[in-house]
C-alpha cells in the first residue's frame, strides 16, 4: 500500500457506509496523491462529512461540539453555504478536494469538549474559511504523483549510462556498446539460479562480496545489501581473484530462512531484472547481435520490475513482429541505451531470444506501426494523465 506523505492532513470521515468510507480512503491515497490520511476521530485534524447523508446535520453539530476548532469539509450534490465549513461539490474531483485540503493547515488536536458545552456557531477555524467552492482561489497543482520510475534514483544516466554517437556499423565502436556478462557478478548469479532450479535445492553463492541465497521453491533470493550497493557492484567488471573466490553450496532452506531478516528477501525475477539492467548500463550483452532479429516470448511483469523508459513500447513492438535491436531503436525512436538495457534484462530472464535466419528463410514483412492519427493523440493524453505529467 502506498505510504502517506509526511505532510498529509489527518482526516476523519462521517456519513459514509463502510464501502464508501473505504473508497474515499483509497481515493485520498490514489487520485488525491496522499494529500490526506484517514485516521480515527480523536486523531483527526479535519472532518469530512457527506452532507447528503440522512443525519448529516446531526453529525455536523456533533463534530462542532466535540472539536469546535477542527475544520469541516462538506461534500454534497447541492451547493451548500454553511458558515465555517468548506464545501466540495459532488461529483468530487481530485483537484478540487486536494485544493481544499491543502489549505487546511493542521490544528492541534483538540480534547473532546464536555458534552454540556454549547455548540459553537461562530468559532472561526484557524485555517482560512471558505464560502462555496466557486469563491475559492484556483487550485494549486496537485502534488507530483509517485512516479513509475521512482526507483531510478539519480536519473537514468546513473545506471543506463550514455552511448554517444556510436556508429553501429563500426565493429570497434560496436564493441564499446556491449558488455561481457561473464566478467560480472550477473553471470555467477544466473549460473547459481540454474543450479538451484535444476537441483530443486536452495543454494548459497559465496564471493568476495556478500553471500547471496537462492530459494528456488519460493522463487526468492536473500541478500544483505541495498539497491545502491548492488547497483555499484553489478557494474564493476570482476577480475580473476573474484572468480577464484566464488563458491556455491547447497543449504537447508527452512532452517536458513528462519534466521534471516525478512526485509532482505526479494523476488527472484525482480532481482535478476534489475541486476541485468545495472550490469548492462545501457550496453547490449555479447552474444546478442544488434543486427539480427530478436523475439520476445511475453510481456514482463512490469508492475514488479524496475522500469526502463519505453520498455512497454518495445515489448509491444517485439510481440507484434520480429525486429533487430537497431531496428527497435529506429522504429520507436528510443535511445539505444534504453533498448539495450531492456534487451539485456529480457535476455537474462530468458524471455528474449535471437536466432540467425537460415539462408533459405523468407524475410517476413514487418507490420507497419499505425500512422499518427486522432486516436494516437487521445492515447498520448491518457498516458500524460496516468503519469501525472
Amino acid at each position, binding site marked *: *500500500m*502506498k505510504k502517506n506523505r509526511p505532510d498529509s492532513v489527518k482526516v476523519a470521515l462521517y456519513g*459514509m*457506509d463502510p*464501502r*464508501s468510507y473505504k*473508497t*474515499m480512503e*483509497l*481515493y485520498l*491515497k*490514489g*487520485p488525491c496523491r496522499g494529500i490526506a490520511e484517514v485516521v480515527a476521530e480523536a486523531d483527526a485534524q479535519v472532518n469530512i462529512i*457527506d452532507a*447528503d447523508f440522512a443525519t448529516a446535520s446531526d453529525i455536523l453539530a456533533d463534530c462542532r461540539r466535540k472539536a469546535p476548532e477542527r475544520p469541516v469539509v462538506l*461534500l454534497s*450534490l447541492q451547493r451548500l453555504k454553511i458558515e465555517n465549513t468548506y464545501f466540495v461539490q*459532488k*461529483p*468530487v*474531483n*481530485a*483537484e478540487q478536494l486536494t485544493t481544499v485540503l491543502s489549505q487546511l493547515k493542521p490544528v492541534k488536536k483538540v480534547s473532546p469538549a464536555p458534552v454540556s458545552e454549547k455548540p459553537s456557531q461562530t468559532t472561526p477555524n484557524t485555517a482560512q474559511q471558505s464560502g462555496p467552492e466557486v469563491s475559492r482561489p484556483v487550485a494549486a497543482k496537485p502534488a507530483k*504523483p*509517485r512516479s*513509475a520510475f521512482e526507483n531510478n534514483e539519480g536519473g537514468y544516466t546513473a545506471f543506463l549510462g550514455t552511448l554517444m554517437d556510436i556508429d553501429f556499423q563500426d565493429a570497434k565502436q560496436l564493441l564499446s556498446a556491449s558488455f561481457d556478462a561473464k566478467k560480472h557478478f550477473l553471470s555467477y548469479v544466473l549460473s547459481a539460479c540454474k543450479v538451484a532450479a535444476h537441483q530443486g535445492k536452495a543454494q548459497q553463492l559465496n564471493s568476495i562480496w556478500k553471500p547471496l541465497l537462492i530459494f528456488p521453491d*519460493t*522463487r526468492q533470493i536473500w541478500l544483505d545489501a541495498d539497491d545502491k550497493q548492488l547497483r555499484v557492484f553489478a557494474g564493476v567488471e570482476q577480475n580473476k581473484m573474484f572468480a577464484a573466490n566464488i563458491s556455491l553450496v547447497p543449504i537447508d532452506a527452512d532452517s536458513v530462512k528462519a534466521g534471516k531478516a525478512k526485509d532482505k528477501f526479494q523476488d527472484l525475477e525482480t532481482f535478476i531484472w534489475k541486476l541485468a539492467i545495472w550490469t548492462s548500463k545501457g550496453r547490449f550483452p555479447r552474444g546478442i547481435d544488434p543486427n539480427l532479429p530478436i523475439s520476445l*516470448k*511475453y*510481456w514482463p*511483469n*512490469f*508492475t*514488479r520490475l524496475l522500469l526502463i523508459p519505453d520498455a*512497454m*513500447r*518495445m*515489448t*509491444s*513492438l517485439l*510481440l*507484434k513482429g520480429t525486429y533487430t535491436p537497431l531496428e527497435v531503436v529506429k522504429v*520507436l525512436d528510443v535511445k539505444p541505451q534504453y533498448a539495450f538495457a531492456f534487451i539485456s534484462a529480457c535476455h537474462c530472464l530468458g524471455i528474449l531470444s535471437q536466432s540467425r535466419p537460415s539462408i533459405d528463410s523468407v524475410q517476413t514483412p514487418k507490420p507497419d*506501426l*499505425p500512422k*499518427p492519427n486522432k*486516436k*494516437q493523440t*487521445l*492515447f*498520448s*493524453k*491518457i*498516458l*500524460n*494523465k*496516468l*503519469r501525472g*505529467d
Partner: protein
Amino acid sequence: MSQYKIIFTGPVGAGKTTAITSISDAPPVKTDAAASDMTKDRKASTTVAMDYGVMNLEGGEKVHLYGTPGQERFDFMWDILTQGGIGLILLLDNTRTDPFQDMRFFLNAFSKFIEDTAVAVGVTQMDISSTPTINEYQAHLQNLGLNPPVFAVDAREHNDVSLLVQALLYTLDPGVVSE
C-alpha cells in the same frame, strides 16, 4: 466534446471498483442522486454506481471507466457497455478456486471486443496466494492463442493500475508516446 471509455471486468472481488477508484478523477459516491447522476440507464443502486469513474483529459475530453457488475455474469449490458470502448482491463482474483476458469470465461464473453481492441490482464491478491504464477497465466493465455500484458496488480495502488492501462494502450499502438 468527445468521450471515450475503458472497460474493467472480472469476477466479484477482483478489485474492479478499487482499480477504477485508483485512477479516477471523481470518487464513486454512494448517494442515490450521485448514482443517477452518473448514467441514466443504469440501476440507481450503490454497487452499480461504485463501478464508474472518469479521467478528465486536457482539452476537456473524458475517458469513462466502467466496471462490469461482477455478479451478473450474463448481463446483456456488457454488449452495450463495450460499444465504442478503447479496450478491456481484465482483473482476476488469485485466491479464487480456479482463476484460469474465470479468465477463460471473461475472455470468451468479451472475445469480440478483445478481437476489435485489446485486453490487459491484472492478477490481484497475489500477496495472499502466489499461485498460479504470472508465468503460468502467460502459458495458459498462449495456449488460448493470446499474448496480452499480464501483471501482478494491487488494485489499491495507482501505479499498478496505471501501468496496466498504459500497457493496454501500448498493445493497441506501440508508436504512441506521452507528450
